[in-house]
């Protein structure tokens, strides 16, 4: 019975990704761009979900990793001629090291729960202010990537039109999802979930909680850094307050929470819900001239969703699609 359910889940996943691969045949640039944003948001959500949903460590400062990754991809290729493929490595490693540093500091000093979250906020805000005053990264003026020339080859520069971004981000999201699926079924995943449920009990069972938590932070930070890198490449420009700071951190984590923490598809579903509504309401605010309308709509959406389904939307949907119970609905914390 369990095996049949799992097979259904894998088939559903394959069908889902296959469908996404085929969409560009029918959709125009506008929709492809929105979907690219959805994929990026889902990918970041998957990364954050690893740390929070699986390992139970609340980070409200993930913008730090996002921002660092973004700046790496904005600076290394354009200023030093480094291949963007190569630049993805420091974009992942640097945030991972930062995450390890913050984690080590926090975990060694037993800073837990909400206090740890505040610690992460402190570091991310610190970074934002620092970047605002740092000449090397252009201070508040930010960094603008070189304009694309007609002879631009997307596979070299990792920049291109709507179609290229769509596929690049779709593949990135799929890779992130696969990694997260493999991790959760591994020894590491079990240890993470045990820590999330009860850290002290897990240590009494031989789990090296410190090492596992640091691993979660490092992997989450690395993936988020790569997401930041893609953001810079796809956007062509960035500023301290577009990639760093608490506002950004908050934006990064709304989707996975709304979609469903601790589940594999939650972050993806969340992104599919949040991003289009956000974009639509922003357009509405602009076209109607009512400044702030988008915030009102977004805020009401959040409050409604979290009231109706605090465990997220995916568990509810999964039940209806008969994809739930065991396997991938790992039991979201808070359900």
């Amino acid at each position, binding site marked *: 019975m369990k095996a049949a359910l799992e097979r259904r889940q894998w088939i559903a996943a394959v069908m889902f990704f296959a469908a996404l691969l085929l969409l560009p045949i029918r959709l125009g640039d506008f929709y492809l761009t929105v979907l690219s944003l959805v994929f990026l948001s889902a990918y970041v959500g998957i990364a954050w979900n690893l740390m929070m949903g699986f390992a139970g460590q609340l980070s409200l400062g993930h913008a730090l990793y996002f921002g660092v990754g973004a700046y790496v991809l904005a600076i290394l290729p354009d200023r030093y001629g480094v291949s963007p493929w190569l630049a993805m490595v420091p974009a992942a490693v640097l945030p991972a090291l930062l995450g390890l540093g913050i984690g080590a500091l926090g975990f060694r000093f037993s800073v837990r729960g909400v206090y740890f979250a505040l610690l992460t906020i402190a570091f991310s805000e610190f970074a934002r202010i620092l970047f605002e005053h740092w000449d090397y990264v252009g201070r508040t003026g930010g960094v603008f990537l070189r304009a694309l020339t007609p002879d631009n080859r997307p596979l070299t520069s990792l920049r291109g039109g709507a179609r290229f971004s769509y596929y690049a981000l779709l593949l990135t999201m799929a890779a992130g999802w696969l990694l997260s699926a493999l991790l959760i079924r591994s020894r590491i995943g079990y240890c993470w979930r045990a820590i999330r449920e009860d850290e002290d009990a897990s240590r009494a069972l031989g789990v090296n909680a410190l090492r596992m938590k640091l691993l979660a932070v490092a992997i989450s930070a690395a993936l988020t850094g790569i997401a930041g890198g893609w953001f810079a490449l796809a956007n062509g420009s960035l500023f301290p307050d577009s990639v760093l700071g608490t506002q950004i951190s908050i934006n990064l984590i*709304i989707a996975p929470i709304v979609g469903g923490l601790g589940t594999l598809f939650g972050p993806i579903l969340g992104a599919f819900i949040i991003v289009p509504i956000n974009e639509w309401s922003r357009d509405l605010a602009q076209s109607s001239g009512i400044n702030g309308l988008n*915030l009102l709509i977004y805020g009401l959406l959040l409050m409604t969703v979290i009231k109706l389904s605090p465990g997220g939307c995916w568990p509810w949907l999964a039940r209806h699609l008969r994809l739930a119970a065991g396997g991938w609905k790992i039991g979201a914390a*808070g359900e």
Partner: protein
Amino acid sequence: MVELYLNVVVNGLLIGAVYALIAVGLTIIFGVMRVVNFAHGEMVVVGMYIGYVLWRYFGLPPAASVPIAMVVMFGAGYLFQRLIGNDFVDQPQHVQFVLYIGLALVITGLNAIIFGPDPRGIDSAASFATYRIGPVRIDASRLHAAVAALALIAVLWSWLRLSLTGKAMQAAAENIIGGQVIGLRLSHIFALTSGIGMACAGTAGALIAPLYDATPYLASEFTLTAFIVVIVGGLASLPGALLGGLLIGVSEALAAVLISPSAKSLLSYALLVVVLLVRPAGLLAPNKSSR
């Protein structure tokens, strides 16, 4: 030179008193309900707008608008908690987080829709009066705000310590389950807590309306500052909030002068990190076991 720094420090202390009032609201909410109120800054801004509206459309001076703001915000906080907030008290942190972020967005959105993004300030004659005490020059409004803030904190502190309800709130802060066992009406206490917390924030906002122009997007800064003050000073500790407020007020003022105005929070965040690592219960935390 000394005169400059003296002015800076004094002004830092004055604004610090107002920060303290904001933080007191947050620490009460956090202390009693263990809620991370990410909409706290928004309450301050609403208070600012209330002060602005009462001045602009009703000709009321800040002295009159402040009590009105206090009552309105108390009511709003109480109702919110009773109708919405109480359902979330048992939920995990990240769920509450989304609720309050949503609330913050709704409020900011409404502020932006009603008042627009442009700054709204109070330009009364009183806004420009200053006092001179020796080498130090102080805005009258700043001094009034600080004095009012301190007075309110003092009143709140004594009420918490001396009144029956106040003690009930403290009891709830220490031990939720124990409180329920002895019959505290938690839904009412939580609503009161929320009302008081938001009233503090809103009053502080009304107090500084003559000093700063209100914009909808000011809010997040206030929220973060409030959290820094609360953590540095010590959770669930009013004296801690006061100390923290003054400390942060001064450090921000100094950082603005020594580094740059936009970097004023740098020192505060550094302080936050140090306190979180070394003395997470805060500088003035009461010595009790964690919940």
